[in-house]
């Protein structure tokens, strides 16, 4: 099938920052993203789990964003501004997409 190369950015970020991150992404011209729930995790700030939590404070989400290579830097800068002072992991990998006209 006909595919085009693109970048897949995955940002794991604290739930209370989700809104700010996605606004920043939109500000950077990102036209689409998907938010996945996160059950728990571990990092320098210790282990946590979503079970039984009622505050959003403790939770995280994963935001996935597929984007054309040429827009990557803009996206990363926008994301970095939000993430910088916060807990969060930003990773980028190469991918191929169907229906490239959508990105």
């Amino acid at each position, binding site marked *: 099938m006909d595919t085009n190369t693109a970048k897949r950015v995955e940002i794991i970020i*604290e739930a*209370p*920052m989700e809104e*700010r991150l996605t606004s920043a992404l939109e500000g950077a011209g990102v036209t689409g993203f998907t938010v996945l729930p996160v059950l728990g995790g571990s990092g320098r*700030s*210790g*282990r*946590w*789990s*979503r*079970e*039984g*939590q*009622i*505050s*959003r*404070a*403790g*939770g995280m989400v994963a935001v996935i964003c597929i984007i054309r290579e040429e827009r990557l830097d803009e996206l990363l800068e926008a994301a970095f501004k939000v993430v910088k*002072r*916060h*807990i969060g992991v930003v990773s980028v990998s190469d991918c191929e997409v169907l229906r490239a006209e959508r990105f």
Partner: protein
Amino acid sequence: MLETIIGLAADNLLSPIILFFALGLLASFLKSDLTVPEAAAKALSIYLLFAIGYKGGVSVSDHGIDQTLLLTLAAGVVLSFALPLIAFALLKVMTRLNQTDAAAVAGHYGSISIVTFVAATSVLQSQGMASEGYMVAVAAAMEAPAILSALWLASRGGNRSSGSGEDSDGLLREILLNGSIVLLVGSFLIGLITGKEGLAEIESFIVSPFKGVLCLFLLDMGLVAGRGLRSSSKVLTPGLIGFGVLMPVIGSLFGLAAALTIGLSIGGAVLLMTLSASASYIAVPAAMRVALPEANPSIYLTMSLGVTFPFNLTIGIPLYLSLATALGG
């Protein structure tokens, strides 16, 4: 009086809600895999806010708006603004937390824990003591101001707060309109509007099963608190633990002073004391993650949920009740 406190505390310790909290703590210390799904825990908390907000509103619609209502609301707001300053000073003396962490912890103690409030209400009930229905509105009014105090305290320490003007507006809106405040105040107003007639329609949903739901909720809080204590026990220095027990008592005294000044009923005084004594674990932590990300969440969550909440639940509330009865009776 000591006897009364001990008697009350002992009664209290053997109530189902405390025991279910203890069960949750124990289960997590034993590393049992017992958990309440996140969605279920959130649903329980929606139920509790809905029920206590609504019942508060109905009670106000029933007894008429007390002249003291505005005074008490104002007192609550002042307490919420002021208590973090006291907490901050105390933390500086008793612990070695840095400016930011101290500010974040202090903010939690100015705000309130609605479950502690509910527990106090149910102790009052079992003692047959009345209280002002609008205390629920006071609880809501006390949620947010403390956050602003905390941010101010942190910024004094040179911590540039969460940036640009746009952003801090967003933050303020987020704080004032956080889900639990909106639901509590909204349900309160709806209770006020629909009154006894409305209550009659939904009584068997929000009144009779309330205590049972509270038991499940406290089971979950025990599980979460226990998990927090287990994974963050190393942050708990003796100084912090001391603060977590001393600060609620100090807070309660300020609450008592305000209550006596305003002339609240003894029940009302106990509730204002409890609100002053309790520490937030929903609204404030979320705000701190956004606005003071450098503050260590394990410290403030463990203090609030792992130290002060159980203290209030077991010893605090009976103590405040005895104090209010002795001084206000």
